[in-house]
């Protein structure tokens, strides 16, 4: 039986290794300088890149962070510190609910509240959808980390006569900062690869960024479009895009680990 269990563990890991292997093999041959600096070429023309999609993804992530982080971090602080009776429980439950909602459903939500009134696909709608996906992750990790701040620190500050709000903003939050940054980075890494909610919000674009109220390119969208297209050249670009995307995601994830390892170790 032990052998069977060990085999199962091996079989769980195997496909992942295969995926990484193919990604490196297929992607590495297609990534070059042009990929990072050029716009996509029309079908039939060799070369071109996904520079606009890389920039687009960064813009969308910035938008999502600007919308989602303040609410998420303050919400987490509230959940950890509040003594209200009902709201924290409800908010915590809904954060978990929101975390389990398929990202495509969140895309529909963003479509109904932003794309329909604006009557066009836009970067804002895409950023909003990503922010909604980020929010529960940021709320829950911030809460966990604020809870880990030693009560003695909190009490000592209060005992010095410092008002509660200053204690929270100047003592508690900075103490939990490293952990919260990690949580934020994990959230960003997670939404960086989201495709489904962007299909009908950011929509994609074959040109450079044209304003926040216009459709915008995104790396995952471009990979999807190229992967299902019938052109070999585009398939190569899709692999290259995938390699770059996963590189981006991993860099953010690893950076998150490095931030944590400095302070508040053991806290995840």
């Amino acid at each position, binding site marked *: *039986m*032990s052998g069977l*269990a*060990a085999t*199962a*563990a091996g*079989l*769980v890991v195997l496909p*992942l290794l295969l*995926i990484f292997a*193919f*990604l490196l093999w297929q992607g590495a041959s297609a990534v070059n300088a042009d990929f990072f600096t050029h716009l996509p070429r029309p079908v039939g023309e060799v070369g071109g890149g996904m520079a606009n999609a890389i920039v687009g993804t960064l813009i969308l992530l910035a938008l999502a962070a600007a919308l989602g982080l*303040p*609410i998420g971090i*303050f919400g987490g602080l*509230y*959940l950890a510190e*509040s003594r209200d009776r009902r709201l*924290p429980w409800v*908010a915590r439950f*809904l*954060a978990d*609910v*929101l*975390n*389990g*909602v*398929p*990202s*495509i*459903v*969140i*895309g*529909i*939500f963003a479509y*109904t*509240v932003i794309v329909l009134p604006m009557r066009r696909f836009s970067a804002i709608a895409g950023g909003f959808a990503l922010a909604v996906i980020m*929010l529960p992750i940021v709320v829950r990790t911030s809460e966990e980390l604020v809870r880990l701040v030693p*009560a*003695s620190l*909190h009490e000592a500050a209060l005992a010095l006569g410092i*008002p509660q*709000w200053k204690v929270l903003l100047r003592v508690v939050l900075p103490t939990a900062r490293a952990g919260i940054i990690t949580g934020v980075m994990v959230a960003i890494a*997670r939404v960086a*690869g*989201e*495709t489904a909610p962007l*299909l009908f919000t950011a*929509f994609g674009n074959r040109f450079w960024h044209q304003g926040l109220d216009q459709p915008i390119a995104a790396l*995952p969208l471009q*990979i*999807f479009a190229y*992967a299902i297209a019938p052109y070999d050249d585009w398939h190569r670009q899709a692999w290259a895009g*995938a390699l770059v*995307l*996963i590189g981006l*995601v*991993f860099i953010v*994830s690893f950076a998150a680990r490095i931030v944590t390892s400095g302070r508040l170790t053991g806290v*995840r």
Partner: protein
Amino acid sequence: MSVVAAVPQVKAQAAPRNLGDQILRVVLRAAALTLVLLVAAMVAAMLHAAWPAIRAFGFRFLVSSTWDPVAEQFGAIPFIYGTLLSSLLALLIAVPLGIGAAIYLAELAPAWIRPPVAFLVELVAAVPSVIYGLWGIFVLAPFLRVWVQPFLGKTLGFLPLFQGPPYGVGMLAAGIILAIMIVPYITAVSREVLLAVPTAQREAALALGATRWETTRIAVLRYGRSGLVGAVLLGLGRALGETMAVTMVIGNRPEVAISLFAPGYTMASVIANEFAEATSDLYLAALIEIGLLLFVVTVVVNALARLLVWSVGGPVKAVRE
């Protein structure tokens, strides 16, 4: 714990006096309220947008298998069927593997193997689903078409499940790619559950002369049963809502086919494919209604899963989604 419990009382006296305190309180509460309102708005906005379809088709939407945008006749059966079948297939593959791997990691493996595995699970969670889809299209589907499906057709072809031409893309590919995507979650949560089983359980079984495997089976698996079911449901919740990878390999044909080789369609993938191209208001409303259904189902499955997992070892913290 007593020190922590004492803090709120100190705060209760200090809080209301200061203006800054009051402002911060309002701001923090507003942030939490935003979250609540967001979920409420989500339900309301989707209900509102789906209303034309709900009114036009009513209950028929859930039992009709006609999906004809030209005639404006919409029924969700092919998508519900596709979502359920692909998720079931994924569970059939992922549950034995995931729980087996969890037993290995929690009960049998040397301690040093745990951190790298936890790291691997985190890594896998970070891989975007469009990348699984890419791999599915160019590696998995051709492999199934050339090797697996002809073989299954030859050996098990008498079953209706394995009949028909081998396309590669189709229900089987969707089930396998979903299994690959959810198995790390099932493994990770199951491992947490098994680790939460009290040592006394194991010691008692060992003291009675049980072998290691008997101990695992009698004392550990049985004790953690509800948590394991929860782990499986968490995996199911993800499988039901998974969009991109499935859309890329399932073939996208709105039909109810028994054969696993045949192309299918899921709720999430019909939204992904047709939403931006929906030409009429009713078409769009029907797609949004499918989204609403998906929302309700995943919320129920996830809530149930969490309750079950918590029933064994308290909230699972180590596993991030």
